[in-house]
């Protein structure tokens, strides 16, 4: 417990309710009005293996898990083995003494207790929140309330089981980690939930996706809430179907989003190029995991930056942006959906597993979310509707069937009507129209917030995407006097905002082996890093380790 930051870790086998236990802990902290960050770590398997959830909390907003927990609940031997060396100073490990004989910590026979009830395998996870409740000083009633809220089914067994764990922990360590209340209870969201809700807030009509980690939970969340939100959700036969259906849905007038990870995104490339040529508004969420190929499905990496920035063959206006926090994921999803409708070109919301699947408390200004509106034909145009009317800003008004007008969207090079052309001058004209649209988009972005700056310290640190959360926490925890600069937009790259840094030698932090972000900064903004702090083992940074690395880089 450094300052008022507290970290709880619960580990066990997949299928033992570890994730649920972690989520309950997060909800407990949030209900105390505290800031919460929840990180789930699990391999690509369904039962067994080793899962853990690490939940960090503070009375301020907190943007990272911490690697050294104050309280560990280890449900099985592997968790005990894996995490025993990680305890923070003054921390306590609660070990399932049925699984570990000689662990260093407080042994409680969790399995034996669970076996007193039916389905013991599913029940052990409940020990997590029960132990936590004891350690942070909840009364027994408060603990029972918590369990009742979190585990709605089978309470007549869960409550006595939890009570026995609660009692044993209280007896062993008392309420060692009493926590202060924070200012206000906030919702807890994962990045994927924030993206889903942000798009919904912008008017999303249709979400299409083929399951792929770590994007799948957008699909699951929206499928679960489809009627509630009024969003149509469908899971078709492949990512190619998804992307092409999305283009079809968009040209019929539906605000449409798709989501996938690297491999599925690769399969969508052709359809994204179609959207570029047809000028169809489609928003694609690319939630990265370590690559190449199948890579490491349930872990995190920022290895797709270059790939994401160059989607689709041929030349058309591309738009890529990446949120730095869960809150920003909400805002940005809405903003991008609105931009694709304003500029009629496909866009990519790039994020990574660390944001997609981590949860944190958020302050959302839902009313400020952007709303996606098409630029529509005003009826005043003489000579009938032209889908590709050659306007000053390259944006042609939209119209959707049913209509008496002829509305031709196309993948071929075309004239203003949308009929195929191979004429040299006509080809140039449409290239120029699309180029002007890119310019218009650029002008728009110049008036928008495209780069976040945090702090105003001496050391300049560049980062982007989910790594922003790690850097912010590292700077806070490490007391580093820094300015953190986070380009939100990555294509077009907001060089105009970064001109002041040209020639500086900042520290760059990213989760990539190749250092793609540092290269991008050097090439586009002529900002050459003095040091690139990278992590590419699939795990997010720990703020304290990162603070150390930053300090070493400053020296």
């Amino acid at each position, binding site marked *: 417990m450094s300052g008022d930051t507290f970290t709880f870790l619960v580990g066990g086998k997949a299928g033992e309710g570890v994730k649920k236990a972690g989520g309950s802990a997060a909800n407990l902290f949030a209900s105390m009005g505290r800031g919460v960050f929840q990180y789930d770590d699990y391999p690509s398997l369904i039962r067994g293996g080793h899962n853990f959830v690490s939940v960090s909390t503070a009375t301020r907003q907190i943007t990272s898990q911490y690697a050294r927990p104050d309280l560990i609940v280890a449900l099985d031997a592997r968790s005990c083995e894996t995490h025993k060396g990680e305890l923070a100073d003054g921390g306590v490990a609660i070990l399932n003494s049925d699984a570990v004989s000689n662990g260093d910590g407080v042994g409680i026979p969790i399995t034996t207790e669970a076996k007193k009830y039916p389905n013991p395998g599913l029940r052990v996870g409940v020990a997590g929140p029960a132990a936590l409740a004891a350690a942070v000083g909840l009364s027994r009633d408060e603990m029972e309330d918590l369990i009742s809220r979190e585990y709605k089914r089978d309470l007549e067994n869960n409550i006595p089981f939890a009570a026995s764990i609660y009692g044993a922990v209280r007896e062993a360590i008392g309420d060692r980690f009493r926590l202060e209340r924070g200012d206000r209870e906030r919702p807890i969201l994962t990045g994927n939930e924030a993206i889903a809700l942000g798009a919904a807030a912008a008017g999303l009509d249709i979400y299409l996706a083929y399951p792929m980690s770590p994007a799948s939970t957008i699909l699951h969340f929206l499928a679960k809430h489809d009627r509630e939100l009024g969003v149509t959700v469908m899971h078709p036969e492949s990512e*190619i179907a998804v992307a092409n259906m999305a*283009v079809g849905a968009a040209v019929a007038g539906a*605000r449409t989003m798709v989501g996938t990870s690297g491999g599925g995104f690769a399969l969508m490339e052709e359809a994204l190029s179609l959207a570029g040529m047809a000028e169809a508004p489609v928003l694609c969420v690319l939630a990265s995991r370590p690559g190449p190929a199948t890579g490491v499905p349930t872990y995190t990496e920022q290895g797709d930056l270059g790939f994401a920035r160059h989607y689709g063959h041929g030349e058309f206006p591309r738009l890529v942006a990446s949120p730095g926090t869960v809150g920003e994921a909400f805002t940005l999803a809405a903003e991008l959906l609105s931009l694709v409708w304003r500029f009629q070109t496909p866009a990519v919301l790039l994020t990574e597993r660390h944001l997609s699947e981590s949860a944190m408390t958020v302050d959302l200004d839902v009313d400020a979310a952007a709303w996606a509106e098409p630029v529509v034909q005003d009826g005043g145009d003489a000579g009938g509707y032209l889908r590709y009317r050659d306007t000053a800003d390259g944006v042609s008004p939209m119209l959707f*069937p049913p209509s008496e007008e002829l509305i031709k969207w196309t993948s071929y090079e075309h004239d203003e009507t949308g009929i*195929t052309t191979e004429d040299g001058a006509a080809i140039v004209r449409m290239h120029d129209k699309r180029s002007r649209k890119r310019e218009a988009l650029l002008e728009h972005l110049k008036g928008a917030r495209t780069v976040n700056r945090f702090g105003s310290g001496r050391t300049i640190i560049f980062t982007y995407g989910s790594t922003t959360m790690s850097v912010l926490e590292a700077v806070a925890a490490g007391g580093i006097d820094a300015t953190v600069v986070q380009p939100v937009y990555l294509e077009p790259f907001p060089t105009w905002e970064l001109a002041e840094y040209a020639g500086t030698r900042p520290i760059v932090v990213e989760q990539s082996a190749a250092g793609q972000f540092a290269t991008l900064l050097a090439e586009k903004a002529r900002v050459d890093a003095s040091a690139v702090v990278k992590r590419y083992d699939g795990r997010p940074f720990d703020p304290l380790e990162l603070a150390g690395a930053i300090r070493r880089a400053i020296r």
Partner: protein
Amino acid sequence: MPEDLVTYAENTWCPGCGNFAIMNAVKRAVGKLGERGVGRERIAITAGIGCHAKIFDYLNLSGLYSLHGRAMSCAQGMKLANPDLRIVSFCGDGDAFGEGLAHMMFAAKRNADITVIVHDNGVYALTTGQRAPTSARGFKGPSTPRGNTEDPFNPLVLMLEAGATFVARGYVGKLAELTELIVAAIEHEGFSFIDVLQPSVTFNDTFEEYNASVELLTETPATLDEALAAARRTDRKPAGIFYRIEKPSNERALYGDGNPVADHPARDERLAKVKAILGTA
């Protein structure tokens, strides 16, 4: 035959190509549908890429000129967005049974309410005559100069087995019947498939063969088995409706009488729903 169904695009099909008849049939079918209350403004089309797909430019109908093999996916997206539209997708045999085979199979499986008209010429015509999934064994094209080593797919059989609820074969040499098939297919609620025998006079001139072998079905087979048997015939080429059943379309199964585009919410309404989920309403 409404002449205003034609755009100003220059027609570049080879003289004598079977595609002309398909376009004529479509124009007539649109006319007939108009008489029955389905105006041309409610019909939207998609096309793949190939000779067949040029029909997109020629027809004065709204829609999306898609990618090779993806016309039926785009069509499903359009229908999903606005189920009030009647969507007709023009595909080549290469589009539908090569590059886009999986989309066809799944469109049939989920009974997406679109009509797919396959211009089945047994060849990749626009790309200069390579073998297609429907080309006969032995077919010589520039990618198989010694002859195709694969047996052809039977499009009707595949669509029947995949779950299509309307399956027909048309022939460009039978214009009136083809017109009726197109009308019936568009009127059918659910996935409608018409395999149109379309000789490519340049790369696979099958006019003579088809004139000799095409024979109109006297009635629609009563069962799937009979439909399959008719589809498998090799001595004659039956044309007409092979199969037609009622089954909820994909869109109805997903949202009943809803319509994502028409039901698009007002902003306040949507924000209230988002807040409700956030628990911050």
